[in-house]
């Protein structure tokens, strides 16, 4: 059984928000569209976005880590938002595990958003239906697109390639291998939601310097040593002896 998902590599995410707006531009004119923006030019502008990048500081100066943290629907394998929906608008696709909202069934009761511990559902304030990340379901199966572009917009956009996309149930897929090998983890595992999306932690490359690496026979300074250079004219033994 297929479970499509994103793997987000916090090790390379620089927090550029490319995934945020590329998601918005694709989806506002797509199947999920439109995505409302309120007060777009006024006080406290706010709008529907499926994906946001947050920033955290971990630790204290000078050992501070700045963490950029993109978050969108995690497409849980056991999504708590689905069974609570009274209309069946919130559903998980059997064929690929994508959790979707049927915008024509949704009554906008917001209950599914209460039932999501991750805060990734957003009610569209003018259409009054719940919306969320679709993994660009209207891209990934679109045969009019070149195969290499049948990926979520955020994945295509991501300048650091911090977003990997694939089937986490296929143990040989890129995402599965990465999760396995790079310590992929799930958010809030305590609730048993089994998010399909995984995150990869920061990984550090260090350099260890051995003391003897500073003492080398080929040290170029040795070439700068000059031999004895006293001029020929200075006194020597030759000036006073005559063997």
């Amino acid at each position, binding site marked *: 059984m297929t479970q499509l998902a994103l793997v987000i590599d916090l090790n390379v995410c620089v927090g550029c928000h490319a995934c945020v707006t590329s998601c918005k531009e694709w989806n506002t004119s797509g199947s999920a569209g439109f995505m409302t923006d309120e007060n777009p030019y006024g006080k406290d502008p706010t709008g529907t976005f499926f994906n946001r990048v947050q920033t*955290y500081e971990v630790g204290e100066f000078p050992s501070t880590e700045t963490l950029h*943290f993109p978050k969108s629907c995690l497409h849980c394998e056991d999504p708590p938002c689905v069974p609570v929906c*009274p209309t069946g608008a919130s559903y998980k696709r059997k064929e690929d595990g994508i959790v979707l909202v049927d915008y024509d069934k949704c009554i906008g*009761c917001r209950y599914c958003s209460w039932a999501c511990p991750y805060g990734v559902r*957003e009610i569209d304030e003018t259409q009054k*239906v719940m919306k969320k990340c679709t993994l660009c379901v209207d891209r990934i199966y679109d045969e009019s697109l070149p195969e290499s572009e049948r990926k979520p917009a955020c994945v295509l956009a991501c300048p650091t390639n911090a977003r990997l996309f694939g089937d986490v149930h296929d143990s040989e897929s890129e995402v599965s291998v990465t999760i396995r090998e790079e310590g992929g983890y799930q958010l809030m595992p305590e*609730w048993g939601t089994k998010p399909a999306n995984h995150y990869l932690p920061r990984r550090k490359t260090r350099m260890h310097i051995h003391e003897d690496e500073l003492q080398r026979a080929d040290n170029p300074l040795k070439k700068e040593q000059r031999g004895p250079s006293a001029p020929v004219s200075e006194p020597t033994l030759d000036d006073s002896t005559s063997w």
Partner: protein
Amino acid sequence: MHPAFSVIFLTTLIGVGQGMFLALFTGQSYSAVELLPMQDSHNFYGNGAIIALLFLIGGLIASFFHLGRPERAWRAASQWRTSWLSREVIVLPILMFFVFVYGVMHYFDLDATLFTADTGAQLELSLVIATFGMIATFALFICTGMIYACLKFLQEWASPLTVINYTLFGTASGFMLATAFANHSAPELMRFYGIWTTIITLAALATRVASLIRNSRLKAKSTLQTALGVRHNRIQQKSMGFMGGSVNTRDFFHHASLVVFKSIKWIFLVLVFPLPLLLLWIGMNDSNTNMLLAAFVVQYVGLIAERWFFFAQANHPQNLYYQTV
């Protein structure tokens, strides 16, 4: 959570309706076994059922204000297998149906005796209907409570106390109203209802205090560490990715100051319990309908505060992601 007034009114109003109906059912049951004098069908049970029904309708109307697309509300009945909300949507009209039938039977004196015991006790058809209604009432209490109690990561809600509180508060407020109503339409039942009201209110006090104590001792299962998957003791959010607010900041935070938040707790603890009980007992002693109605109104206002607090106190784990603009 952000206390949505549509939901506050929905739950408190149908609670009154359910409680009122339970009071009627209780009264008639006692009468059926001749523990209480039989009341006038039209004036008491008929009008009483109308009052209960009005509250239920009021709640239903309030619920529509919560929906973004109320015209599709009919779809909400489809997921009864999994969704407590769907079940509530089914049970509420069923209850209303029984209350309606019950009311009609009494109001138009259409009741029929099904069975008369040797003792002279009679089983009326209306009581059978009312029994179904009673079952529906409790089912509705359970559905309503479970809507909240089933959200396991909303730890303040995920407890049997939530269902119990919903049940007791609804029942208490309904009985309170029934007391006032009885004083007006069936004075001999007033004290019966008054005493039950007192008992139920005190029980509600006990369970609500229990839930307050429980909630104050809760240790959040989710932390910023589990939310981000970062193992460090000191993590601080610096940006939530937007600055003008979003559904995440609007729907999941009460936005009240700590002072307001704490005051509302004390306000509801006073308005739901001691003050209405005091008014109730004054009203009972004086057989003063206005005083009894005041007791109901005070308690109802208190319940609005209680429900506000119930939502506000619930700390959604998503809030971990939305702490700093």
